[in-house]
C-alpha cells in the first residue's frame, strides 16, 4: 500500500522517466493491454477470464472485509490509518494478521479448487451439495480467522461500536421495524400473488389476459414516479376514530411494499404455475378437491421453488428499500434500517464515529448475506426461472 502511495506522491512531484514507466496509471494501461491480448488467444482466454473474475471477487471481498474490520476498531485508529484494516493482513511485520491473511488466501484457493478435484459424476446432487457446504464452511472459517486475528492485533473491544450503533443510534429498534415490515410484506405479497398467479395461469375467465397484462404493465412503473400521488392519497386515507393512518405506520408501509411487489411476483409465479402439468389439477378435481383445495393442497406445495425465489427477491428488495421508507415514515421510532443508517450518518456530520457507522452497515447487510449464503441455489434458479420450459 505504501509503495503505491509513494509512487503517487513521486508522480505529483514530477515524474522521472523510470517513475512514469511504473506509475499506477501506466501499470493499469499495461494490464489492460495484456488482458485484451490474452483474450484473443483461445488458449489463454479462459485462464485470463478467470483471473479477471478472481480480481473482481477479491476486490469485492476486500471491500466487505474493510467495512467489517473497521467496524471493530476505534475511531482514532480509523482516522489515522483507514487502510490498515486491510493492509495489516498483507504486512509481514504484523505477524499475527499476516499469518491469518496467508491462511485465508490458502482457504480461498482450496474453495476454488474443491469443485475441480472432487469427481462429480456419481451421486451428483449429493456431492455438489457437499462441495457447496464445504466451500461455505471454509469461507466462514477464513473470514473468522481474519476477524479474530484483527481483534487481537489491536482492534480490541469490537463490540463497542456495535453497542453504540444498536443502543445509542437505535439501530436495534430500526432492525426490528425492518424485520416486521419485510416479513409482513413478503407474507402478504406471497399470499395474494400466489392466488392471483394461480387464477391467471390455470383458470379461464373473461378478462384474464387483460388482468395479466395490467400486472405486467405494472412492472414498467418506477417507484419514484408514484411517490407523490401515493403520498397525497395515503395522507387522506385515515381513520381518525381508530387513530389509524397509513402515514407513519408500519402497516401502511407493508401495504405499499406488497402492492409494489405484486407485479413482479405475479409475473414470476404465473410462469411457474403455468409450467406445472394440468393433469394434477384434474386428478385433484376427481379426487374431491374444489378449486381452492386444488390450489392449496396440490399446486401451492408444488410451486414451492418458485415461491421461495419470489419470497427471497421480495425480501431483499424490501429490506434495502429507502425511498418509500423515507417518505412515509417520519416518526423516529418507526424508521427502518436503511433510513436509520442515513440518519446515523447525517447526525454525525461534525463528530464522525466511523466504526459505529460501519457497524450499522454490517447490521443492515448481515441478513442479506445470510440469505445469499443459505439460499444461493434458489436465487440462481430464480434468475433463470421461466426462461426454459419444463
Amino acid at each position, binding site marked *: 500500500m505504501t509503495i503505491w502511495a509513494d509512487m503517487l506522491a513521486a508522480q505529483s512531484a514530477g515524474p522521472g522517466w523510470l517513475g512514469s514507466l511504473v506509475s499506477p496509471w501506466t501499470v493499469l494501461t499495461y494490464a489492460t493491454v495484456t488482458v485484451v491480448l490474452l483474450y484473443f488467444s483461445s488458449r489463454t482466454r479462459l485462464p485470463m477470464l478467470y483471473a479477471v473474475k478472481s480480481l473482481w471477487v477479491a476486490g469485492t471481498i476486500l471491500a466487505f472485509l474493510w467495512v467489517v474490520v473497521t467496524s471493530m476498531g476505534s475511531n482514532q485508529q480509523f482516522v489515522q490509518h483507514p487502510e490498515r484494516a486491510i493492509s495489516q493482513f498483507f504486512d509481514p511485520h504484523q505477524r499475527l494478521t499476516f499469518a491469518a491473511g496467508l491462511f485465508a488466501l490458502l482457504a480461498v484457493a482450496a474453495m476454488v479448487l474443491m469443485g475441480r478435484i472432487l469427481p462429480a459424476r456419481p451421486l451428483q446432487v449429493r456431492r455438489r451439495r457437499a462441495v457447496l457446504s464445504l466451500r461455505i464452511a471454509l469461507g466462514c472459517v477464513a473470514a473468522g480467522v481474519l476477524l479474530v486475528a484483527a481483534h487481537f492485533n489491536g482492534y480490541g473491544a469490537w463490540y463497542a461500536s456495535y453497542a453504540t450503533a444498536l443502543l445509542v443510534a437505535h439501530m436495534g429498534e430500526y432492525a426490528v421495524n425492518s424485520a416486521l415490515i419485510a416479513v409482513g410484506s413478503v407474507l402478504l405479497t406471497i399470499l395474494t400473488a400466489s392466488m392471483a398467479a394461480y387464477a391467471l395461469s390455470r383458470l379461464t375467465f373473461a378478462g384474464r389476459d387483460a388482468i395479466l397484462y395490467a400486472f405486467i404493465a405494472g412492472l414498467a412503473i418506477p417507484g419514484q414516479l408514484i411517490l407523490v400521488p401515493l403520498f397525497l392519497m395515503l395522507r387522506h386515507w385515515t381513520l381518525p376514530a381508530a387513530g389509524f393512518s397509513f402515514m407513519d405506520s408500519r402497516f401502511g408501509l407493508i401495504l405499499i411494499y406488497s402492492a409494489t411487489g405484486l407485479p413482479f411476483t405475479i409475473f414470476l409465479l404465473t410462469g411457474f404455475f403455468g409450467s406445472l402439468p394440468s393433469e394434477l389439477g*384434474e386428478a385433484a*378435481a*376427481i*379426487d374431491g*378437491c374444489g378449486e381452492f*383445495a386444488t390450489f392449496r393442497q396440490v399446486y401451492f406445495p*408444488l410451486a414451492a421453488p418458485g415461491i421461495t425465489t419470489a419470497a427471497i427477491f421480495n425480501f431483499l428488495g424490501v429490506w434495502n428499500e429507502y425511498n418509500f421508507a423515507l417518505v412515509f415514515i417520519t416518526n423516529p421510532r418507526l424508521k427502518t434500517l436503511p433510513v436509520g443508517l442515513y440518519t446515523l450518518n447525517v447526525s454525525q456530520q461534525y463528530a464522525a464515529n466511523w466504526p459505529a457507522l460501519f457497524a450499522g452497515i454490517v447490521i443492515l447487510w448481515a441478513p442479506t448475506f445470510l440469505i445469499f449464503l443459505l439460499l444461493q441455489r434458489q436465487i440462481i434458479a430464480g434468475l433463470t426461472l421461466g426462461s426454459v420450459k419444463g
Partner: protein
Amino acid sequence: MARVLLEDVSKVYPGNVKAVDRFNLDVADQEFVVLVGPSGCGKSTTLRMVAGLEEISEGRIRIGDRVVNDVPPKDRDIAMVFQNYALYPHMTVFKNMAFGLKLRKYPKKEIEERVQEAARILGIGNLLDRKPKALSGGQRQRVAVGRAIVRQPKAFLFDEPLSNLDAKLRVEMRGELKKLHRKLMTTTMYVTHDQEEAMTLGDRVVVMKDGLVQQCAPPLEVYDYPANRFVASFIGSPPMNMFTGDLLSEGGHLYFVEGPGNRIRVPDRHREGLGRYAGQAGLVMGVRPENVSERSDGDFAGPDNALNVEVTVVEPLGDKMDVFVKTARHDHVCCRVDAHAKIEEGQKLPMRLDMRRVHFFEPGETGMNVSLNGASVGG
C-alpha cells in the same frame, strides 16, 4: 358400481369445431367398454366429459340414476387414471392413494385399511413410503390405478393408461388390468388408440373417428364383421388389405375385377346385398392377411378366388410368415401364411382368398360394409 349412459352427447369447441358428434352409449353395470380410434377422434374428450373435466355441449350423461351434466367432478363418484399418471409429486405413495379418501373425511383407520388392501392387490405394499419420483414407470402406473380403486367409485375411467409404458410392460399391465376388473367388477370406460389393447380388454369396443361412432360391438364382432371400411382397416394388425375394383355380373354370378386377369367370384349369398352395385366402378374388397394363402385346399378352395401376384418381401416371424406381394394395381398387399411355406422373393404365383371372410365396402374412407346385408360372412 353403476350404469353409465350417454345420450346424444356432443362437444363443440369455439369456432364450431365438433369434437364429439351425438355420441350414444349405454355402459351396463360391471361392463368394460373400450373407446378406440386414431388421435383426434374425440375418444378422450368423451371420457373427459364423463369425468366432468370438459363441459357437455349437448346431450345428457347419466351415472347410476343421476344426470351428471351439471355435477362437478368431485361429486360424480368416479375415478380416473391418466396417461401420465398425474401422481402428486410432493406426496408419498400412501398419501397419493389416501388423498381422495382424506378429502371425503373417511376415518383414519378405514383409509389405512383400504390403502393397504389396494396396495396388496397391486403388489406395491413395499413402496408406500416412497415419492413418485423414486418409482419406475410400471410402479407409477400401479399407484395411479391404486389411487382409483381405493375410492371404490361407481365407475373407472382410464385415459390411455398404458401408452407411456414400454411394450413388454404394457402387455403385462394389460393382463393385470383385466384381472383387476374381473375381481372388482366395476363399470369401466377405457380410452386407447391401440387396437390390440381394445380387443384384449373390452367387453365391448367403440370405434370412433372424427367425433363419430363407427361401430360399437364386442371385440370379435368388430373384427369379424366390421361395419365399414374404416373399422376394418383400423382393427387388426397387420391391417386388412383393401382392393379397389369393379363389380361385374356375368352368367348369374357377380365378379369382382381387381385388375387385368384377376377376377374374383363373389359368393352367391352376397348377390342380394351387392347386386345393386353391379356394373359400378370403385367398389372396395377387403381381405385380412390371414385370409390370403398360397394353398388351394380347405378354406382356400376355389372356384375363382385367386389373385395373380408377385412377391416383393418375405418376413418370417417364427410362428407365421408375412409375405408382401403386389398385383398390377395394388403395390402393398400383406399375406400371413404358414411359417414354412415355400415362397421366395420375386416369385410369381396365385394367392387364394378365403371367400367366407371377404368383405365388400362402398367407396370412400368410411364406406359401408355392404357384404353384411342379409347373410353372415363368417358362416
